[in-house]
């Protein structure tokens, strides 16, 4: 028999209280872990999903909405701009690459993104590379004879169950012109994984067939200038224009992060309050348990247990609760973060990686054990100071 086995015996002796205390610690720790992982995941998701282009040109309106809709496919799309905006930008000598993007409806929850082959092209400045796990990219087909070819993001392929060569359509009016899957992308860990890419001609053709719409709109144009010094000029010009605005995606990200920081501060305050409540709960549980067994503590002392030994037993008890609650909380926090990440990805297209083991988990566990020991300290001192003779009086 050891101090640890005595402590565990005592914990098992009041099983319900021990379980409830452990669960309360686990809930507190889980909240902290989930909050850390989710907020970090969102931030990293935004950074990883951010575009390599310096400017997003779209219709006048909210810059945040434009970037969220075009880059992250999170918000509803901004009003359309005319295709001529793209043509102007493409012919601008200051611009290296301009890519037209049209964000459309969805097929089984996966957004149509119409663009051209430049979207997938390899440029020296690009961080994100597009490669195919099977098939080929769609062709830049002429406007008057759309090919109705689709390239699926990795998750879109998994989610829809579509394979190479499969044909699909939405709405009876499209039955004669279904889209054919010609390629499936490897995962990019961005919103593109949940996209169904088609050519602009195919998109316009689909709209003409389905809605009788003959105009050729765009949601935005992604722009990469040849020189970074031209960004300011292009930005100003597009914002001065009546119909368009140019947005710096990095600036929007900064705005989003600033908004998140305010929310995080509020969340941190709530987490501190939760932590204090859990701490008080553990303290009260340990204190009342120690009060209840002062006779048993006195008996152990009469059997030869030193004051330090009974102090250690109570501390090991609270430490064991903290370890169990801490580990349970870390696991629960990861599970919650995983669910939150899946929900975010499904609802907003923001892809985050919640399972990252680094210094956070051991640090949280160490803090929990320390706080658990702290909560057990006063009850342990109560045990330490228990008067033997006083508490051994015969029971009436």
């Amino acid at each position, binding site marked *: 028999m050891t101090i640890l086995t005595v402590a565990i015996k005592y914990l098992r*002796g009041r099983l319900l209280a021990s379980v409830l205390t452990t669960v309360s610690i686990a809930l507190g720790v889980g909240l902290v872990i989930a909050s850390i992982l989710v907020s970090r995941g969102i931030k990293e998701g935004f950074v990883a999903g951010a575009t390599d282009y310096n400017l997003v040109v779209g219709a006048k309106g909210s810059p945040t909405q434009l970037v969220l809709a075009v880059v992250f496919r999170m918000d509803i799309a901004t009003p359309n701009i005319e295709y001529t905006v793209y043509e102007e930008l493409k012919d601008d000598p200051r611009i290296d690459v301009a890519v037209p993007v049209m964000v459309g409806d969805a097929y089984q929850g996966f957004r149509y993104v119409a663009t051209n082959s430049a979207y997938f092209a390899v440029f020296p400045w690009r961080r994100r590379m597009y490669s195919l796990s099977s098939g080929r990219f769609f062709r830049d087909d002429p406007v008057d004879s759309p090919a109705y070819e689709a390239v699926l993001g990795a998750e879109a392929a998994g989610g829809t169950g579509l394979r190479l060569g499969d044909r699909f359509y939405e709405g009876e009016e499209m039955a004669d012109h279904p889209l054919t899957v010609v390629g499936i992308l490897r995962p990019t860990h961005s919103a593109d994984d949940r996209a169904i890419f088609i050519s602009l001609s195919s998109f316009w053709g689909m709209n003409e067939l389905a809605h009788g719409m003959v105009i050729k709109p765009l949601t935005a144009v992604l722009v990469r200038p040849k020189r970074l010094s031209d960004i300011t000029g292009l930005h100003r010009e597009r914002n001065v224009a009546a119909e368009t605005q140019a947005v710096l995606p990095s600036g929007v990200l900064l705005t989003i992060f600033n908004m998140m920081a305010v929310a995080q501060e509020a969340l941190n305050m709530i987490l501190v309050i939760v932590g204090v409540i859990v701490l008080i709960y553990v303290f009260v549980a340990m204190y009342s348990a120690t009060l209840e067994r002062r006779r048993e503590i006195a008996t152990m002392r009469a*059997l*030869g*247990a030193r004051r330090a030994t009974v102090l250690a037993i109570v501390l090991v008890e609270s430490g064991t609760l903290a370890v169990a609650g801490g580990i349970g909380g870390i696991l629960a926090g990861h599970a919650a973060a995983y669910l939150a990440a899946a929900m975010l990805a499904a609802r907003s297209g923001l892809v985050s990686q919640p399972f990252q083991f680094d210094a956070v988990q051991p640090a949280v566990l160490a803090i929990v054990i320390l706080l658990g020991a702290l909560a057990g300290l006063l009850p342990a001192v109560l045990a330490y100071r228990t008067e033997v003779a006083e508490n051994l009086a015969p029971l009436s």
Partner: protein
Amino acid sequence: MSPRSAVVLSEVRKSFPAGDGGNLEVLNVEHLALSAASCTVLRGRSGSGKTTLLNLIAGIVLPSAGTIEVEDTDLFALSEARRDRFRAEHIGYVFQSFNLLAAFSALENVMLAMLFAEVIPQRLQRQRAGELLAQLGLAARLAHKPQHLSRGEQQRVAIARALANNPPIILADEPCASLDAATAREVMAAFLAVCRQDGKTLLLVSHEQAALGDADQIIDMAELNRAETGKATTATVRQ
């Protein structure tokens, strides 16, 4: 040649703070010696200082004056931690209320005492606890929690626990007072037999006929305790 004394008390006094700011002397013993391997029975009315005397010999309470030697060791010359260790190794204590730990089985209650003394190697503790309980007729009750044992069985577990570290001295405070007469006779007989067999020095507070009949020495607290007989020399007179 006179037998070796296992316990010697000299001019031992014990006072407790009284409500009026003075001290209330509850024990005043000029001299008491317990021979090794003897059985001494203490008798006295309630409040005559019997339990205080046992607690002093166990080193659980400190004397106000005097010396207590147990196994040739001046108990109160030791630091508290060393006195605790000394108690664990040399003194077994049987309480009137058994004081078994509710969360522990009979076997574990006995093994618990071994944790504090560390005289029985860990690998042998379970075996020794089992043997002691079997010796007291509880071989079939090892895994039972105290609440699932009869009062007589609980007291046998408490006796086994007192014997766990094979201490030379056993103190027992009315061990059968809360048992019915038949069970008390049975438990007392088993207790005395084990103590005799192992040559323990036994100081027993009891009014049981079996104990009185088996005692080498019977001490009446009224005669031993000068505080009890009104010979107290402290300022406060005991009410």
